[in-house]
């Protein structure tokens, strides 16, 4: 009240350029709704075009934002820094690919609205990436979540899809409610909703341990749901399996990027002190990383469905990303690199899975039996992606893993903490376990003999497949020359 209202308005107006990419998204969102309602009947793909254009514009604006380093706007609600900007570029680009994926895959139905939902989800993730306020963070999480529920349930062509949507929505809502309760407690403890602010940290420092434990763990439940780390991973296999493959591709990649960035910021803010809550945050992240890597990889061993398998794989990768967050110090490059690697690999995988689903009508491993000889290129590419998912050279997955290991090792060298060493060892050993299930794909495709002659349906999405090959090429290229990416991240 003391500040004159004009000054506040000036400040808001000054903040507006920071919001330019999101304006593009918003405009795209509104246009997409309009075109889906009115133009889709006459002009096929017009909504997709609008979406793509708006995403393109967003990416362009984001590139313009790259030089900006750590600026806030909208009364400290909006935070633009390099990490956020790059993450948003990644999110937008990946969303563009997903939109293309959906466009290629779901041509028959009138799917105009799905693009608007996609754009809204993107906006939510942008929010996650560029805020330090719990309020916005919660809105972002809810936005992404609800958009995701809608995307999963959008087609509802069969039982599995609707079931997946319900499980996702209910599980997510419960987690959101728990997180909200945790946030309320945290608000009570600190009186401030900005987790980077001194007041917030001060409040956490002085609060009693049980309350801090309670509130932090409850908050982590919400974030954990989005990241699907153990023990909040249970929804992901069912949902991944039940969703349409294009949506699974979306779920496994983009929302995680946003949540990771948020979590990174929170962890960064919290872990910098020597008080109990920092210790607690570290404890949580270590335990969760270990559990996710172990359980994700172990449970994947027995999967028969590729999409389910990828769900566990992404749980395991989340564990690895936790490691990356844990070791984050002053440069986000390896974290971001690993994110890029993760997105690239998963997108490529799901493009292949989708293609095979179209050809064989199934996503079970068994249906790949003996297909290696019929689709050698596809399965070779698939194998390369599997290699990258394991983290073997010469792929991007290896470089990512190496960088994360480096960072973790550095913190080990400084701290001599046995649990960190455990992280390293488990991270390394689970790679061995993961070999076993990732390589079931080439195993079935190349090594197992085909029992009976299968008739492959013809496929329409050749363009999508070539995008997949392009991604595989990137996986290899960045595996050999990671600098091509890293030099961009200055």
């Amino acid at each position, binding site marked *: 009240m003391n500040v004159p209202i004009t000054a506040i308005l000036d400040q808001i107006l000054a903040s507006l350029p920071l919001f330019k990419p999101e304006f593009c998204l918003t405009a795209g969102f509104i246009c997409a709704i309009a075109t889906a309602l009115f133009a889709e009947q006459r002009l096929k793909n017009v909504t997709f075009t609008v979406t793509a254009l708006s995403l393109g514009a967003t990416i362009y604006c984001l590139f313009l934002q790259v030089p900006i380093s750590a600026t806030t706007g909208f*009364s400290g609600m909006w935070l633009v820094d390099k990490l956020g900007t790059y993450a948003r570029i990644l999110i937008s680009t990946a969303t563009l690919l997903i939109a293309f994926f959906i466009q290629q895959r779901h041509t028959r139905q009138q799917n105009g609205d799905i693009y*608007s*939902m996609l754009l809204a989800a993107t906006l939510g993730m942008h929010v996650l990436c560029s805020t330090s306020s719990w309020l916005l963070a919660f809105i972002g999480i809810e936005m992404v979540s609800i958009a995701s529920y809608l995307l999963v349930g*959008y087609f509802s062509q069969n039982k599995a899809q609707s079931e997946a949507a319900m499980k996702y929505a209910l599980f997510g809502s419960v987690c959101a409610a728990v997180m909200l309760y945790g946030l309320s407690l945290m608000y009570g403890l600190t009186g401030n909703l900005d987790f980077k602010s001194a007041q917030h940290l001060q*409040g956490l420092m002085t609060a*009693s341990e049980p309350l801090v*434990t309670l509130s932090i763990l409850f908050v982590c439940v919400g974030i954990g749901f989005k990241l699907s780390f153990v023990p909040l991973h249970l929804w992901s296999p069912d949902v991944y399996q039940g969703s349409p493959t294009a949506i699974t591709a979306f779920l496994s990649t983009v929302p995680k990027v946003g949540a990771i960035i948020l979590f990174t910021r929170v962890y960064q803010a919290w872990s910098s002190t020597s008080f109990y809550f920092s210790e607690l945050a570290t404890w949580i992240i270590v335990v969760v990383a270990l559990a996710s890597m172990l359980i994700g990889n172990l449970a994947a061993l027995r999967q028969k469905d590729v999409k389910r398998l990828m769900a566990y794989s992404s749980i395991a990768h989340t564990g690895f990303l936790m490691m990356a967050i844990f070791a984050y110090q002053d440069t986000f490059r390896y974290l971001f690199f690993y994110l890029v690697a993760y997105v690239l690999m998963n997108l490529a995988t799901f493009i292949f899975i989708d293609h095979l689903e179209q050809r064989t009508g199934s996503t079970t491993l068994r249906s790949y039996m003996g297909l290696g000889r019929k689709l050698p290129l596809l399965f070779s590419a698939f194998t390369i992606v599997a290699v990258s998912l394991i983290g073997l050279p010469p792929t991007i997955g290896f470089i990512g893993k190496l960088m994360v290991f480096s960072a973790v090792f550095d913190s080990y060298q400084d701290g001599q903490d046995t649990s960190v060493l455990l992280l390293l060892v488990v991270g390394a050993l689970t790679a061995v376990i993961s070999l076993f299930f990732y390589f079931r794909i080439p195993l079935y495709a190349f090594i197992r003999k085909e029992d009976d002659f299968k008739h492959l349906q013809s496929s329409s999405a050749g363009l999508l497949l070539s995008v997949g090959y392009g991604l595989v090429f990137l996986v290899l290229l960045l595996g050999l020359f990671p600098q091509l990416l890293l030099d961009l991240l200055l």
Partner: protein
Amino acid sequence: MSVDFILFYAFAVMAIGSALLLVSIRNTARALFLLFIVLFAMAGLYLFALADFVAITQILVYVGGVLILLIFAFMLSNKSLLSDIHTVSHRLTALPNLPSFLLASVFLAILLFALSSWNNNMPEWMAAAEADGSLIQPTENNIRMLGFKFMTQYVLPFEIISIFLMMALIGAAHISRKGERP
């Protein structure tokens, strides 16, 4: 013991009691009506926290919107369950599902344990606010302040939530519409 205490306890008992009843009866329709009472009582509690606008919104949005929605959805879908009402209604409450009950109790115990430390040390910021008397007073115009805050400090979430609501609306509509074409 002042009046507001008595009223507070009354609202609290109403909220907790109806909530307990809500979860323990088998009849979903009655449960939903009980939810109405809970939400109403909660709104009353908000008033005691000097959040009049929140209380109004609660009643408007929840009681007016959500609850109706719930009941409609329930009516639309669960005809079979509605017919069940008569068969199971002879027992008002259902036996608690033991593991869930245990888990909820443990939750409660832990929450209460954690909150027990609240009395001893009030968070500093609250103490500070109490000290310089910058508490929200019952006399203050809350709604004006909130309107001001929404348009200045919280303008961004305010705008974003509009997109969010629109998306949720279209999406929910789309999904419900889907059912119309078999």
